[in-house]
């Protein structure tokens, strides 16, 4: 199948596209470093606010989480990038991606962290409070460490999804890895750069996938 190899695994084209793709990878990594911490922070806020005994606080949160978990992130990005200017709000591609991912991620991370916090027995909280720890300190030192540990596989899995999802930024012309690959593809009339991008994703994510498997296994064993 010489045609197949030349088309999809054309080393010459890959070599030529590599510097451009690495630039794209740089943008992808930058994006990940921005949206993952932002998403986790937003998710933590969601999870903590959800503990409020007040319905007025919990109801909007449920709506928020449900909405952004159900709403396609691709549409969200396009709406932020191309739709907001009609409302007189002009934001750049990077800002649109940051906001879009923040909204989407905090909903997902929020659900994961909420489940984690709820998995910590109430007695832990009571023991900490009974020694005079304030609510924030009891949360920080006693509940959260256990909550995170209990949902660590979900957190890692979610983060893997987020890394892959950053390729959505290509629709608003943010030059991340996939966008770079598609540019290279259209310049060379050859899909090899796309395959190269896939390989880069694979190499980048594989260690984390391994880690995830091990975490999941450990959770099963410790149960």
């Amino acid at each position: 199948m010489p045609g197949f190899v030349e088309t999809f695994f054309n080393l010459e084209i890959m070599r030529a596209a590599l510097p451009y793709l690495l630039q794209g990878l740089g943008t992808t990594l930058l994006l990940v470093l921005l949206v993952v911490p932002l998403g986790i922070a937003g998710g933590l806020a969601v999870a903590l606010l959800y503990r409020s005994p007040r319905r007025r606080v919990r109801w909007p949160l449920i709506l928020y989480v449900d909405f952004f978990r159900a709403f396609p992130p691709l549409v969200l990005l396009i709406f932020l990038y191309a739709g907001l200017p009609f409302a007189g709000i002009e934001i750049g591609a990077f800002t649109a991606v940051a906001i879009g991912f923040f909204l989407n991620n905090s909903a997902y991370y929020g659900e994961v962290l909420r489940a984690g916090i709820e998995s910590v027995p109430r007695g832990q909280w009571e023991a900490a409070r009974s020694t005079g720890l304030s609510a924030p300190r009891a949360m920080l030192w006693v509940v959260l460490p256990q909550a995170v540990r209990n949902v660590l596989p979900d957190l890692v899995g979610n983060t893997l999804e987020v890394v892959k999802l950053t390729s959505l930024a290509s629709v608003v012309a943010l030059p991340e890895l996939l966008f770079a690959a598609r540019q290279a593809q259209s310049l060379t009339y050859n899909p090899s750069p796309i395959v190269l991008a896939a390989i880069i994703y694979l190499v980048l994510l594989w260690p984390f996938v391994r880690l995830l498997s091990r975490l999941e296994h450990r959770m099963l064993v410790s149960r």
Partner: protein
Amino acid sequence: MQREPPVLSIRGLRKSFGATEVLRGIDLDVRPRELVFVIGPSGSGKSTLLRCCNRLEEPSDGSILFDGTDIRAPGTDINAVRRRIGMVFQSFNLYPHMTALGNVTLALRQVLKKPRREADEIAAAALARVGLADKQGAYPGELSGGQQQRVAIARALALEPKAVLFDEPTSALDPELVGSVLQVMRDLREAGMTMVVVSHEMGFARAAADRVVFMDQGEIVEEGPPAAIFGAPQHARTRAFVDQIVRH
């Protein structure tokens, strides 16, 4: 001794969960160095009574004075009160992600703001006091139930509380491990600690309690020295409960 003001003074304490009234007007004084034993059938409100004393449960009505502080007053810093009332739980509630030493030092460092070295020293002494000097580095999962409960007691003691509340401290333990925890409680009593104990260990109550309080359906039915409550209960409900316990 009777002249000293009570450490804990409860008046007209009521607590409802929804429509269910669990405590129906409790009056109780606990004097310094006294060991008060609270007994009664399950659902009688014993645990709720304890949990109201440091406001883990919010009382519905009544007043609780601890060491002269009205713990329900709006201006009261409940965290400051709680660090002076130790609490020991049925299910130990040790922090599983911390060593025995870490469990004891957390409040020392975070609440009392002790530097690490001092906190470690206090915690080591507290662990030694409950016979676990060699278990500082052990995680709760590596300890037996009895050892875990003793670490929990050390965690409470390290803050030098004015009183310690025990909420069924031995109920979750295998029978052969109960003795070590009771021994620690006996030592505490010898050392003059003020204690309120909710427990089914009637033998311990007989031997160590200054006063036994019998509760039923959210009320204190009868109280007195152990010999009187177990030997000659005045009230029919007390008699029925004591008979049942003795027979089993």
